Structures are given as C-alpha cells and as structure tokens.
C-alpha cells in the first residue's frame, strides 16, 4: 500500500476551483518534486495533505491515517507528516532549542530531558547544534530554515512536506538548506516538495509532478520529464522549444 494516497482531491475557494481531481500515490522513500506555475495549485495540494486547508472532495490518507476535519484525526495525521514553510515560521519567543522541544513536550508528552536530547540530535543533524540557546531573530534565513527542518524532524514524521522552502532565502543561503534536504533524501525520508529549484529536482528526486490549472498535467522520472516533456504546457514551463 502507498504511504500517501491522494484520491480525486478537489478544493475550491468560493467559486474558484484550484484542485480539480488530483490522484497521486507516494511510496515510502520516494522524493517527489511538484513543479508548476504559481496558481497551478501545487502549494494548495501540499497544504491539503496535512490539513491546513480542508478539501472539498476526495480523500487523503497517510500510512492509514485518514484526513478528516476534526482535531483527533488531524493530530494523528500531523504526527505522521511534518511540514516546512517558505517563511520558516519559527516561534520568535522561544530559543532554537525551545522551538525544537516544544511540540515534543506538549503534543507527545515527552519528558524534558528526552525532548532536549532529541532536539540536540536533530540540530546536530542540520549542523546547528551550537545555536541551541540562540533566538530565531539572531539567525540567518538559511539557519532559521534548518531549525525549522530540525523542529519537524524531532516529531519523527514518516514524511515531510516542503513548501517552497528556499524561495524566501537569499541566493547564497539556498545551498545549505538544500544540502540538508539532500541528506534526508539519501537517508530514505519520504519527501514531497514544491520547488522552483529545477536542478535540485533533477538531481535528487525520484519523481517529478508537473501541475497545471489544478490538475496533474504530466508526471514521471526526472530524466524523462526534463529531457522529453510531452505536453506544450510543460515545454513552455521548462523553456524548451
């Protein structure tokens, strides 16, 4: 069975239908890049997967946890999928360590020493163990984003959703964040990323999903999708003529 099963998902904002029946199955360990123009629905799809948007129709399940709009189901689902945001969204009133420990303690009821151990381990993993006591506003954008990754990892999710996680970064800071993601991929983490980093998608991902006007327009292994795009829309998007 697939790890993430997305079946006939539709989503409307008022009269405007942004997802028009999405089907996508993700196997464990897959790294999927979702590409497409802005407004194609790719971010909305990602946000639906962990319930930040309620879907209008269809179903989503992650490792057997069904997406339903009540707090208990949402919690079960969100314990399985972590999410990284474009704007980092670190908690400014907590230290880096506090950010990574908070939800272990309040959601999973992990005791403080264990939560701290886990936080230090995860920060080590993203190369920021020395920043444990710093506050988010003392860090660069790239460092903040790596803390956000550590924060999500500390919940031990089985999949991570990455929503344009390098788009808000200065160009020279993009590489350090992508390096962390690359490592996660190598370790077998299941990843779904909305991204504009085509080179990264080509090098790291196992599958590329091209979305257009609320539908999965084309999908395949990166070498196929990038080398021989089938549809005119994807050709235009990639700038291939």
């Amino acid at each position, binding site marked *: 069975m697939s790890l993430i099963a997305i079946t006939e998902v539709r989503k409307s904002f008022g009269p405007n239908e942004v997802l028009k029946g999405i089907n996508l199955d993700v196997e464990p360990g897959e790294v999927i890049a979702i590409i497409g123009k802005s407004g194609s629905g790719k971010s909305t799809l990602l946000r639906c997967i962990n319930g930040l948007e309620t879907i209008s129709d269809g179903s989503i399940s992650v490792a057997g946890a069904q997406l339903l709009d009540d707090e208990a189901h949402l919690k079960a689902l969100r314990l399985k999928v972590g999410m990284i945001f474009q704007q980092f969204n670190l908690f400014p009133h907590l230290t880096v360590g506090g950010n990574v420990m908070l*939800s272990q303690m309040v959601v999973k009821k992990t005791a403080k020493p264990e939560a701290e151990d886990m936080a230090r381990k995860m920060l080590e993993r993203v190369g920021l163990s020395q920043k444990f006591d710093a506050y988010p506003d003392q860090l660069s954008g790239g460092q903040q984003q790596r803390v956000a990754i550590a924060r999500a990892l500390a919940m031990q999710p089985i999949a991570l959703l990455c929503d344009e996680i390098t788009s808000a970064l200065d160009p020279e800071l993009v590489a350090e964040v992508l390096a962390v993601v690359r490592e996660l991929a190598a370790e077998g983490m299941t990843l779904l990323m909305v991204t504009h980093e085509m080179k990264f998608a080509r090098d790291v991902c196992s599958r590329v999903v091209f979305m257009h006007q609320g539908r999965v327009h084309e999908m395949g292994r990166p070498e196929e999708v990038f080398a021989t795009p089938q549809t005119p829309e994807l050709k235009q998007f990639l700038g291939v003529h």
Partner: protein
Amino acid sequence: MIEFTIWDILRNLLLATRWTILLSLVSFVGGGLVGLVLLFLRISKRKWLRALAKYYIELFQGTPLLMQLFIAFFGLGLFGIDVPAWLAAGLALILWSAAFLGEIWRGCVEAIAKGQWEASASLAMGRLQQMRYVILPQAMRIAVPPTVGFSVQVIKGTALTSIIGFVELSKAGTVVTNATFQPFTVYGLVALIYFALCWPLSKSSQILERKLNVAHRNH
C-alpha cells in the same frame, strides 16, 4: 459656618480615593477575567460562539456606561435583591471592561502572523495548545501597552458610579462641594487627584508602546 481649609478638603477627597482605587482594581481584574473568556469565544471555531461574543462586545461598546450602571442597579433590584451601589457598580464596570479588553486582546491575537498558527498546527498541536504555547505568549507582549492604556479608562469610568450613589472620589467631590461651597477648588482638586492616578499609567503605556515598536524594528 465652619471654615474648611484646603487640607480639610484634600484629606476628605483622598480618603474617598481609596474606594476609587479599589473599585478600579476590582473592575480591571474582573474585567480581565471575563475579557479572557470573551477573547476565547471571539476566536472560537464555532460560529455561534463568535457571534455571541461579537454581539456582547457591540452591545457594551455601543451603549453608555452610565446606562449600564442604571440597568445593573435597577435591573438587579427586579430579582428582589436589595442592590447596594457597590455591587451594581462593580458588576457593571466588570462587564463593561471585559468588552473592551476582550476586543483589545483579540486585535493582539490577530496581529500574530498566520504562519505561527500553521506551523504549530503542522506540529500536531491542538487549538488550546497553540494558544497556550505559541500564540498567547507572543500576543501578550504586544497587549501590554494598550491594556495599561485601558486601565486609565477604567479609573475614569469609576467616576460614573457616583451617580448611582457609590461614594468614591467624584461623589466625595460633590459632598464636599455642598458642604464648603467651593466648587472651583474642590473639583479642581478632584481633577488633579484623578490626573495623579491616570497620568502615570498613560505615560507608561506610551513608553511601553515605543519600546515595543523599537524592538520590532530590530527584528
């Protein structure tokens, strides 16, 4: 006729000021507690709870405090309770303060970036946990200046309780005026005492606000 010195007048007024301060404290603390409940209703996921809080706030902000005092005073009497002025005064001021504090705090909660809600939700926190650990700690920081500022309105609001017969600073002013026939001096002194209570709060609210703005700019 007995001669009243300024000192006699001032002493009487200051004695009554105790009640102004006490009533202000009770109203502010009580209003804060009810206001907190209103805040939670106002940002609840349930539509009817939000509407309930909204209408409460509009009612109390859209009618004179004096009318609210009258209704508390005469309305409680309908239940056959012999209503002492302090009870009606305290009750009305608590309900009135709650409406304003609830609305001020809602503004502060809504000023917290949407990403904070989303990030904490994606970490599987429930709504109360999000409030308790992520939103309120941040909202409280920005809520301090306007909350301190509102305490000035509460102190000034207590003056109206003199009208339903609660003896505090304003009522004492009227009583002393009637005894001394020196309204200019007495009401001047009353005003100065209010000023001495309110101005430090107004000023600290301004200073706190400025500090917060500076802190924000540094982020």
